[in-house]
């Protein structure tokens, strides 16, 4: 025997020095960092900005101003592809939309985006851009769901006063056991609804999920599609019919929900947002039990310790640790594989974007000539559908990697809808292959 260590000594627990007491009201990550300096150190480094071919982020210098004191922002996606402005015409996203960057920026990027200046946003926004656990607890007198509801109903500017930090240790960890926990009511409720649709009653993510599942669910708290329900502006994840794009589409159609009325075409349109969790679920990695944290928070060796990388970022910036324990190919080859998946997705996304923009332009042209053209209602619904499908891939931040075939399949259907919209405008007798749902103005 070459290594001789007393049996089961590992069960003695971790070599960790408790410097301070942490309890369920300790919000400041710097305090937690006293006990866990290595994790804290990584957490702080989410300020880094480095671009990959389709991800990461690029530090664009800007001159700080009174209203917006940021000296760097991420690159503007609207400038990279102006078709996005057409897609979102009339919605705040057409004014400012940037590549997302590290967690350290989440609170300031939300506070300072120009989208805040063109529309008054509700407090609901804050849910995914700050450490809200303590605010929930305090506003709800210990009941986080109550606190959540109160925060939702405030105007953003007021809600903003209740939070201080970007997502922090307390939002993902139980302070006593340090095990993972979900703190976001919207995710708890969304999971319960989804599981119910599969016949599982009263699912409680904090009780019923395995440790490995929690390594995904803590991220699923925010990296998901969402909408603001009713006048309470409740944050809801639209999963009651399932989490595939067609399930969500059906859900919104049944709710007759729209995000806004399209400026150019008057279609009742939807904005899809970062459905990473939903798309990951359709991929081979989810099926193989590979969690978000496996790739985005890979273990890192520091001295004699191995810790979870708390510098959450693109795995392409740490291929050796994120991928190579499972995939024995060179870094270069792994990178090439990812980029080949992404390029295929990106090229098809471009075709789908062209089809959508053509449809929008056609509607605009025709309604100008004849606002009562009989093909318009159908064409507008097809735009709603084509656009949501396209945006589901566009807004998903892995450029197809999390579920390559699924992403391409969704784009294929998007193209089918957009082109059929164009047909209908030229031939109102045409019956598309999907039933038309009327969404009120």
């Amino acid at each position, binding site marked *: 025997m070459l290594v001789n260590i007393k049996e089961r000594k590992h069960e003695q627990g971790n070599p960790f020095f408790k410097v301070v007491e942490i309890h369920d009201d300790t919000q400041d990550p710097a305090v937690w960092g006293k006990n866990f300096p290595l994790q804290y150190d990584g957490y702080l480094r989410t300020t880094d900005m480095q671009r990959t071919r389709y991800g990461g982020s690029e530090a664009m210098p800007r001159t700080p101003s009174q209203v917006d004191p940021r000296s760097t922002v991420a690159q503007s996606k609207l400038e990279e592809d102006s078709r996005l402005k057409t897609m979102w015409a009339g919605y705040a996203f057409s004014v400012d939309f940037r590549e997302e960057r590290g967690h350290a920026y989440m609170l300031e990027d939300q506070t300072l985006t120009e989208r805040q200046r063109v529309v008054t946003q509700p407090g609901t926004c804050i849910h995914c851009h700050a450490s809200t656990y303590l605010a929930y607890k305090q506003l709800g007198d210990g009941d986080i769901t109550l606190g959540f509801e109160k925060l939702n109903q405030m105007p953003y500017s007021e809600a903003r006063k209740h939070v201080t930090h970007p997502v922090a240790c307390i939002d993902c960890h139980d302070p006593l056991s340090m095990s993972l926990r979900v703190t976001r009511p919207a995710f708890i409720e969304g999971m319960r609804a989804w599981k119910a649709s599969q016949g599982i009653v009263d699912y409680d993510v904090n009780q019923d999920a395995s440790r490995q599942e929690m390594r995904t669910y803590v991220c699923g708290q925010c990296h998901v599609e969402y909408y603001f329900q009713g006048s309470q502006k409740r944050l809801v994840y639209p999963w009651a019919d399932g989490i595939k794009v067609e399930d969500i589409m059906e859900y919104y159609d049944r709710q007759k929900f729209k995000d806004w009325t399209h400026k150019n075409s008057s279609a009742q349109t939807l904005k899809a947002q970062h459905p990473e969790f939903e798309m990951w679920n359709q991929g081979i990695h989810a099926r193989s039990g590979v969690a978000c944290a496996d790739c985005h928070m890979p273990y890192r060796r520091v001295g004699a310790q*191995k810790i979870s990388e708390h510098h959450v970022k693109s795995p392409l910036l740490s291929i050796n640790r994120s991928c190579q324990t499972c995939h*024995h190919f060179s870094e270069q080859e792994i990178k090439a594989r990812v980029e080949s998946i992404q390029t295929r997705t990106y090229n098809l996304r471009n075709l789908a974007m062209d089809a959508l923009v053509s449809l929008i332009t056609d509607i605009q042209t025709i309604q100008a000539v004849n606002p009562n053209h009989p093909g318009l209602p159908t064409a507008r619904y097809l735009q709603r559908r084509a656009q949501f499908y396209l945006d589901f891939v566009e807004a998903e931040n892995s450029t197809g990697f999390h579920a390559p075939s699924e992403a391409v399949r969704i784009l294929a259907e998007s193209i089918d809808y957009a082109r059929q919209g164009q047909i209908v405008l030229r031939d109102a007798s045409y019956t598309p292959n999907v039933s038309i749902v009327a969404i009120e103005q």
Partner: protein
Amino acid sequence: MYKETVEPESGAVRTMRTTKLSIFVIFCASFLVGIASGLGGYTFYYAQGTSYLTDDPTACANCHIMQAFFDGWQKSTHHAVAVCNDCHAPSGVISSFFNKAVNGYHHSKAFTTGDFHEPIRITEDNRHITERQCRRCHQEISGMLNGWRNDLESVSCTRCHRSVGHLY
């Protein structure tokens, strides 16, 4: 405080202890029957069944069916630091003997009858043993990973490090 949440020995291990005892009884009985019928017994002899009781990896490769795994081990990062039994037999004199007896009987029988799934797959019980053996050597580094629940199976080392013992 964190120490208190640590279980000294997980339930899985306790159960294994008990099953091992009964398996030992079955093994002894089967071994005698095996010798009588000349079946398992012959193979046990032919394959130098006592090799299960040594740490010599070439002993495992006595069965040609183990050759591929031996070859894989030789290419792996661990060939210089761990032999088959370091990963596939529990440590501790008693439990190690029991385990080898059980596996020895099982493999001999399988080898003789040819009745086993191919490709060969590690059994759940033996995977648990291997997982424990990783921690035996790497307890220092895996301390943090075990987290604060310390349920052994909640982090599987081989999920990410499947190939440390065998590189094909």
